[in-house]
């Protein structure tokens, strides 16, 4: 019996485009691991927020500060964008770059509107004098919600570069993998927002 050698890796045509190349599919596993760390970042921020929520010092508490309207609208925008990015991936599976571009752009527009509303919301609080210097509660609020907002903003910039790559190169295992990881990231931010909406806004208004 002689030493058995492993075959060199080849293309897997039976798998979706983003998984067909071994190296690209390894990157998707890596991205999941990154998401694990990001979950932990938000978990830490949430636990800090939960502890700090009653510690309003002389500043306003959640009840006085928050308005339902903007938060609800933000939720609507972000949930819709999760739907549109889902369609973009569907189009990708069908091999239609045009559809991918269009639905990704829709996602970005919704994301941008979300960020705009959030900045507006923060600015309106700050105008009332509710800055993070005021209280530990406000510090925790701005940093928790702001970290999410910064993630969304980063996602928008990332997707813009992806659109350029897609326009230049079309759908390849590489661009497909990048779009796929972007969609994972975007869905993840949506899930985090659901928690923010519940813990920060809903529970803040009820308590």
């Amino acid at each position, binding site marked *: *019996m*002689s*030493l*058995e*050698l*492993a075959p*060199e890796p080849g293309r897997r045509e039976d798998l979706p485009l983003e998984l067909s190349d071994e190296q690209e599919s*390894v*990157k998707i*596993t*890596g991205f999941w*691991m*990154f998401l*694990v*760390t*990001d979950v*932990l*970042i938000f*978990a*830490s*921020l949430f636990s*800090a927020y939960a*502890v*700090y929520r009653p*510690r*309003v*010092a*002389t*500043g306003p508490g959640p009840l006085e500060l928050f308005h339902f309207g903007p938060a609800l609208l933000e939720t609507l925008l972000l949930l819709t964008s999760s739907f549109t990015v889902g369609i973009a991936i569907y189009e990708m599976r069908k091999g239609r770059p045009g559809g991918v571009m269009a639905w990704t752009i829709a996602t970005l527009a919704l994301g941008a509107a979300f960020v705009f509303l959030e900045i507006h919301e923060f600015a309106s609080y700050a105008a009332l004098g509710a800055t*993070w*210097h*005021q*209280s*530990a*509660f*406000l*510090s*925790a609020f*701005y*940093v928790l919600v702001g970290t999410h907002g910064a993630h969304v903003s980063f996602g928008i910039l*990332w997707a813009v*570069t*992806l659109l350029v*790559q897609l326009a230049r*190169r079309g759908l390849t295992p*590489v661009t497909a993998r*990048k779009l796929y990881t972007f969609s994972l990231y975007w869905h993840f931010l949506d899930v985090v927002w659901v928690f923010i909406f519940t813990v920060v806004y809903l529970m803040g208004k009820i308590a």
Partner: protein
Amino acid sequence: MPPFARYLLHTLFPPDVLRPTEVGADVLILATGVIIMVVMTRRHKWRHLWTEWLTTVDHKKIAVMYLIAAIAMLFRGGVDALMIRTNLALPGSPVISASEYNAVFTTHGTIMIFFMAMPFIFALFNAVIPLMIGSRDVAFPRLNAMSFWLFAFGALLFNMSFVIGGSPNAGWTAYPPLTERVFNPGPGENFYFLSLLIAGIGTTMTGINFVVTSLRMRAPGMTLMKMPMFVWSALATSTLILFAFPPLTVALLMSLIDRLFGSSFFTLGHGGMPMMYVNLFWLFGHPEVYIVVLPAFGIFSEVVPTFSRKRLFGYETMVLSIVAIMLLAYGTWVHHFFTMGAGPTVNAFFGLSTMLIAIPTGVKIFNWIFTMWGGRIRTTVAMLYQLAFIPTFVVGGASGIMLATIPADYQFHNSYFLVAHFHNVLIGGTLFGLLSGMYYWWPKMFGRKLDERQGKWAFWLFLTGFWITFGPQYLLGLKGMTRRMYTYPLGYGWHTLNVISTLGAFVMGAGFLVLVYNIVYSMRNGERDLTGDPWDGRTLEWALPSPAPEYNFARIPVVYERDAYWDMKEKGQTLANSLTVRDVHDLELPRNSSLPFFLGLSFFVVGFGMVFSWWIIAGLGFAGVAACLVAVGFDYRGPKRVDAAFIRGTEVALGRLRA
């Protein structure tokens, strides 16, 4: 002098960086720097440095760079330790002042943990994990280089603090309110937070990389339960990193925002709460101690079978216990602050969970002993460190159990008993493990053995020095001496023990010098390893020539057994004697990239700007980071092709292929 220049001078060179010790060190650094520059220029080595090292994505070269950094940092941390010890041997006439002492123990602890132990671990992971699992590199080679450069520039930022601006001085734990701006206005703590944030991003990426490498890059046939124990320890360590570093990142960020932008997380007024930081920090900190010790466990699990000529006893229980330790590590963090008054129920829970960890750890200790039992033991330097590790670590573990006994901890807490305990596990566990691994894998990394006789000298100096230093510290702790005190009155009966402890520290210092001599000597004169298998090894890395060629495996073998290479040797079918010319094909390897270096540099500029609140510089740095990320996105150069003729030539030259 124009006001701007005066401002600059005053900010960069405040009085506490102009003390004789600091200036002396500055001169030395400058002189060394100039000498290196001159030699490099004379020998026209800059281009070589850039193309072969600074832009490399090869895991084997990244390993070498990590190792150099770790040894340099062991030196810096060691000098700090000697300064600490010198002061404590001379109560009444301290050599360094209280404020300088604060800076020195802070940098000592921070450097030893983050900039010595961590890169040393990553050096060994990088050097051997891909070889052990039969892979041509880690899962993400370019990301690996980015991790390294983030670490390196983070370390640079941290070490700069004693040359310009002033060192951090709030302990390696950096508890608020001591780190809040009102109490600590200089840039020192900014250096701490920013450098750890930057290096921490790198570490997190390394964690991702090695989780995916060990899960997805193994040779066919190597199931999880056939993975070498060192790979298991890398997987467990990396998983711990994924879960432990995010809370640290959040704690550091909150402190930084408090300091730079006036938020109120840990302030005393405005509802802030320093205990929040302490919880977040130790939510990271306790897993961190397992992050630094699990690799040592993994190393011993390779060293012991090789030098006992037996397979590892109880492999399954080894895996089980490493996973158990990994999980338990998250449930013990409160034991670092029992005295802060969380109440008896909480304390009891965490005291018990801490003691539970002794069970899987004990399992491992017994397994190593049973592996040696009846084996043909060779006392090489690598094995000596293991033999010293067992009793040393057991004492450290036992004193840990004493600390977990809550009523007793009210006595031990923050005393020299604690200092002795954690050095017992950090030196006896982590450092001995890493040195053992270094001696074991050195031939694989450099193609030569480290001289064994000199290595034994270094070993005995370290071991005896260790006990002389830290044995007395247990007694000092019981006599009530607390940690972080720069001097003490005579008449407490502390003096003699402190003098003994200091002597021990200098013995360890001598051990370090012998170690460095050992390395320098062996670079030129060490015994050449021509077979690739100098120790009669059992795992796949020994199937390759030393050092391994850039592509590692001309062909990747299929794995059948746990000790894959041992199995091949028993069947008489190794890569060296079975490969034929027809087996060798073209290969693809990742391409070198300068982006990791520039990404690290940009983060450094961000950090430097933020330390002094120079926002324009910080902004430039951020622009650099953004530019690097975009460039990464648009980098569509495919892999580098290595053609079969070249590989055949290399393998023939290595005597592994008949032409």
